[in-house]
């Protein structure tokens, strides 16, 4: 479940966020390669419509738990009696982004067992893409799930392209995972391209502006304070620096960030950078996925499993297990760590087609609402170990106020 501001780069210091100092885009780590200078069009200012950020426009507050595994997503196969279970869960904040590539890996393992039909457990973004990929590979698929897509945790996420957000810790994931990650990210990226430009914009790109009162300074990650311990010594990550970052592997296909000339944007903030990011519109994208699944003869059975052994009751003897965070209880996977994230959803603004990041708050205009998310300057440690799914309205209201403030002095036209 991607939840993280598109501008974030894990190699950079999470703590500097509080000072508004982090200005780098995914896939472009600094003043070096990948950072373009803004195209200068003299005398022209971009025309943008303002975001209507006010508390009384909040229509929904969603809380999601990213299923984070320090080792990276679980993709191994396991025998359970005469059933072959292929796991596909634990994608942290990268589930939406890596879904197609991860499904490709899981489906390849399923196909190798030569089944005519497979079961998929779970109907979140990982389950649904696994099911569609299995159909595309010629298999008949039944999804067994507690809830249909629109009520899964996937749809409580941010839904942006953040393929290495809380995807793993560098050490426990090991060297080899980087290559697998790259394969999944590239496969997903290409898969998403076939949804761009379709009616309803299931997958879309928009510009994203980062506003600051200070010039951008690229800061290298600082070493964590001594005596803090780490995942190896405490069983929990203790510092943002432990989290894996792989985005430099796909710099060649991901957009660069620009430093904007003063006065060239409608924002009053003195320092503005602009990037571009891909994101997913849940309603239409979910609809396309479900439509393909059903048109290809896919079946959905509403069912809740309580013990792994119950899989033996299924007629399918190959199962792709995509429970997301529920794997912690359903598969007794204690390696899953919840990472809480909360988004407020304001009334959609079709006339607004960009995102914003300012003072630890992000806003992104999506077809189903203006999404506003607060951060606390904790980098990758943000929300870690917090499994509360209760919305915190005060947090969202404060975040909306921060976005509203960013439009003070906004120049229209």
């Amino acid at each position, binding site marked *: 479940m991607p939840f993280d501001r598109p501008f974030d780069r894990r190699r950079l210091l999470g703590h500097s966020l509080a000072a508004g100092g982090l200005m780098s885009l995914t896939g472009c780590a600094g003043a070096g390669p990948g950072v373009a200078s803004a195209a200068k069009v003299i005398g022209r200012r971009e025309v943008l419509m303002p975001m209507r950020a006010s508390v009384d426009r909040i229509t929904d507050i969603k809380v999601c738990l990213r299923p984070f595994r320090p080792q990276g997503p679980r993709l191994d196969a396991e025998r359970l009696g005469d059933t072959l279970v292929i796991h596909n869960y634990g994608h942290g904040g990268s589930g939406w982004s890596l879904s197609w590539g991860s499904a490709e890996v899981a489906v390849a393992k399923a196909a190798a067992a030569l089944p005519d039909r497979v079961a998929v457990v779970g109907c979140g973004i990982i389950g649904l893409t696994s099911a569609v990929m299995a159909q595309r590979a010629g298999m008949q698929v039944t999804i067994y799930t507690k809830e249909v897509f629109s*009520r899964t945790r996937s749809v409580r996420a941010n839904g942006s392209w953040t393929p290495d957000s809380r995807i793993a810790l560098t050490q426990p994931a090991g060297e080899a995972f980087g290559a697998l990650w790259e394969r999944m990210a590239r496969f997903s990226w290409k898969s998403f391209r076939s949804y761009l430009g379709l009616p309803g914009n299931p997958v879309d790109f928009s510009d994203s502006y980062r506003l600051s009162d200070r010039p951008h300074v690229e800061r290298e990650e600082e070493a964590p304070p001594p005596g803090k311990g780490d995942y190896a010594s405490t069983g929990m990550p203790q510092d943002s620096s432990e989290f894996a970052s792989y985005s430099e592997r796909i710099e060649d296909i991901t957009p660069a960030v620009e430093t904007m000339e003063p006065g060239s944007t409608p924002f009053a903030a003195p320092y503005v950078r602009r990037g571009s990011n891909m994101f997913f519109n849940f309603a239409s994208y979910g609809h396309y996925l479900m439509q393909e699944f059903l048109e290809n003869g896919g079946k959905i059975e509403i069912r809740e499993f309580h013990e792994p052994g119950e899989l033996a009751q299924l007629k399918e003897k190959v199962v792709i297990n995509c429970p997301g965070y529920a794997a912690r209880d359903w598969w007794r996977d204690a390696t899953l760590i919840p990472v809480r994230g909360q988004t407020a959803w304001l009334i959609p603004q079709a006339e607004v087609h960009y995102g914003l990041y300012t003072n630890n708050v992000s806003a992104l205009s999506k077809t189903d609402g203006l999404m506003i998310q607060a951060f606390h300057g904790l980098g990758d440690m943000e929300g870690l170990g917090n499994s509360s799914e209760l919305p915190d309205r005060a947090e969202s209201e404060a975040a909306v106020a921060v976005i509203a403030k960013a439009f003070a002095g906004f120049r229209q036209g």
Partner: protein
Amino acid sequence: MAMRQGRMIVIALGGLLGAGAVTAAPEGPPPGRYTAEQAAHGAEVYAQACAMCHKADLSGDFDTPALVGRFARNWAGGDLASLAGYLHRAMPAFAPGSLSAADNVAVLAYLLQANGEAAGPRPLPEEPAALKAMRFKP
């Protein structure tokens, strides 16, 4: 006024019919798998630890599962050890595993009560081995 009286009569009849149905064709196990005291304690624990998400009437909401209705269908035929284990392992979601064994089984008793099972003289046991032999909505 006449209409209101008519509605009251219908309600009263419905109540009688409902009561009749219960006595004529009892469903589920014979009473006795938990005590009323256990369920009452379970209701207290529920109010403290569960109701903020699952709501006071156990109806849940869009993001949180209800603990009646669909819940009964989901757990029908499942053994109570499995349900008690899930409760203890996964709930409350914000602090999994924080309920004592006695509180945990009291919440389970409350859930049985809320799903239409009557109380009886014997308490619901805490031991998984004993719960394993019992079915939710057998």
